[in-house]
């Protein structure tokens, strides 16, 4: 922890000197899971979009935290665009995987896409941090984050750091916790 604090200090110093490090993050998940809404919430409030429409192909968004500058590849989750994901695996240094906790029916589809992602040669042997957002917690019979992680068999991910957060992207609840975790992971990786 002491080391971590010191790192934080260095980072802050680097930040003040305008030497913020850039990091490429892939934002993945099924269609209508809330990827764009989450990215929109993470952007500074003056840059936020009012209406979120289904993403076509992908879009690149940038936002900064205290120490890191994130470049997020917000991929479209629609079935016909999901084969684009793998072309960005190489560049990605972290992954945000968004799940619609209220869509019990398609939990298997999310699991299938996650398994395909984890078994991809560009991902399989890399210690790349994965942040899961169990989104749409505001919906009445949404599954808990524990249940989501059970259904996706997250306990089987042994060689990569991962973390799951229950979120409500419409209100922005739970997002900061996840981003903080991701930031810590990236910093430890670069040490």
């Amino acid at each position, binding site marked *: 922890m002491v080391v971590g604090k010191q790192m934080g200090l260095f980072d802050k110093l680097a930040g003040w000197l305008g030497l913020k490090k850039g990091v490429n993050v892939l934002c993945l998940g099924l269609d209508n899971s809330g990827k764009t809404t989450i990215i929109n919430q993470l952007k500074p409030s003056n840059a936020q979009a009012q209406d979120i429409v289904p993403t076509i192909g992908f879009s690149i968004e940038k936002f900064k935290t205290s120490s890191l500058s994130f470049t997020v590849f917000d991929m479209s989750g629609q*079935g016909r665009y999901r084969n684009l994901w793998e072309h960005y695996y190489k560049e990605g240094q972290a992954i945000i995987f968004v799940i619609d906790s209220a869509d019990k029916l398609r939990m298997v589809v999310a699991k299938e896409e996650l398994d*395909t992602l984890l078994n991809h040669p560009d991902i399989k042997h890399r210690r790349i941090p994965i942040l899961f957002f169990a989104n749409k917690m505001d919906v009445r019979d949404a599954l808990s984050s524990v249940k989501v992680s059970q259904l996706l068999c997250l306990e089987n991910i042994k060689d990569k750091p991962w973390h799951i957060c229950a979120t409500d992207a419409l209100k922005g609840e739970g997002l900061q916790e996840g981003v903080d975790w991701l930031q810590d992971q990236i910093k430890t990786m670069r040490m």
Partner: protein
Amino acid sequence: MSSMEPSGDGGKWLDAHYDPVAGLYTFSSCVDLADLSGDGESRLVLGDLGSGSSGMKLKVYRGTALMSESTLLDLPAGLVAFFMDLHEPRIPAVAVASGPCIYVYKNMRPYYKFTLPGLEVNTLEQDVWQQVREGQIDPLTLKEMLESIRKKADTPLSVRSLRFLSLEPDEMEEFVQLQKQQPIKRQTVITCIGTLKKSTADEDGVSCLVIGTECSDVYILDPEAFIILTKMSLPAAPTMMDVTGQYDVEFRITVACRNGNIYILRRESDKPKYCVELSSHPVGLVRVGKNMVVGCTDESLQGFTQKGKKLWRVELPAPITTMASMDLPTKGFQAVLLGLANCEVHLYRDKNLLSTIKTPDVVSSICFGRYGREDGTLIMTTKGGGLMVKILKRTAAFEDRDNAPGPPLAQSIRLNVPKKTKLYVDQTLRERENGLAMHRAFQMDLSRLRLAAAKAYVKALESSLTPMSSSLTEPLKMNAVVQGLGPSFKLTLNVQNTAACRPVMNLAISFLYDEGLYRMKNPYMRIPLLVPGLIYPVETFVECTSDKGISDIIKVFVLHEGRSSPLLTAHINMPISEGLMLN
């Protein structure tokens, strides 16, 4: 979510949901998928037959949960979701056919009830009921009269009279009192329902309802005013139908009927244009592209063109329980899903079996389409009332392999056949032109050859010219060997008794030869007793007396003592003597 069994489908489907105790009793004709809220998420609409006599319900599922249910008054015969107007947002209505009515639901609330026009009532029947109303006849007389009407009349009785006839005598009075003031109506019931786009082929275009009735009629209804636009007649009551095209342009209604035939109705005519007579009754009818695929009770699946020409037929391992089409326009994939009684669901593209899904129970209804936000969703209900949802994997690909045993692949490889020569071509031409004459000539020669052979054979048999005796008492075999260069030859005759166990006695051998050419020491020899099976060599010496370099035949006869005709004969072609006379 319930426990998932591994299914032998090659990993093409994801098990999204299985509720074995959903308590659903329905068939493919009463299941449909539609975006009932206009939010881009499709719902599952089911007409549940309840217990088969009560508890009929219209159920709507969203995801894994039952979203709403409403009571139906009668057993549903069919259910379709369709767009009935152009209002925004585009929300489809649900039409449930039951009895003689169609109940239309909008936003899952009852919206309109359409009743089929009544049928003509038998006048005699009407008179009888009129008399009852006036108190002229009692229930027992009524029963007798109605029964005689039922036997004779061409127009069938109304439901009320039929019901009356089925009552016990003590219930009759009450029934008559209750019913006699009502006018008699005779109505038919709906057997199947379909939709037909009105004027555009758009996904959300307004559709007409197409209904088939028990009295062998097909009606097309206007979706807004619910008036009958067209009435068509069939030779038998329809059971299943498939509709394609647009009402205002051109359409085609394929109807499977209770007489085991399939009729094809077109826009121009109110009578069927084509008819397919099946060898057994149809249990499922699905259109794939322009062809139709029919499942029959004889455990077969058959393909026909839209004009009724049979294309193919495959045998199935078990009876068909239900059929549905699998249409994935994004992948350009069309196939037929078959529920079988052996707890399997087969996927056929044309006659090729692409994949097999094992199910924990026999499937009673199948529906494939967009459910929730997933395009390739397969929804099945089971005989035990279970609900099963499977999602086609994004990466799933079906091999278009011909599984039917047919010519091997090697057969299509071209062989290096040499070019045709002029001779070959000439011969082929000759054969083509004179085929008949050639065949006749060949047949005549063949007959002659057979005749000659038969003649020679008979002659040989008659004169025992053969080196084998086939007589039953002395079956003998003989062969001769000539050794030497000449002028002296050694003649060895190997004689064998070919009988199973009887020895042969009293045999002799005699030679006949040209005495000017040959000289033989003893031209007559006795043969010892011949034990069956053993070969007896009989040796003698022949001397050629001529030095002219010529040879002749020596005839050998095997004789039975006391009989004049020989048992067998052998002709020995003597070689030319190459040596010189010594004396």
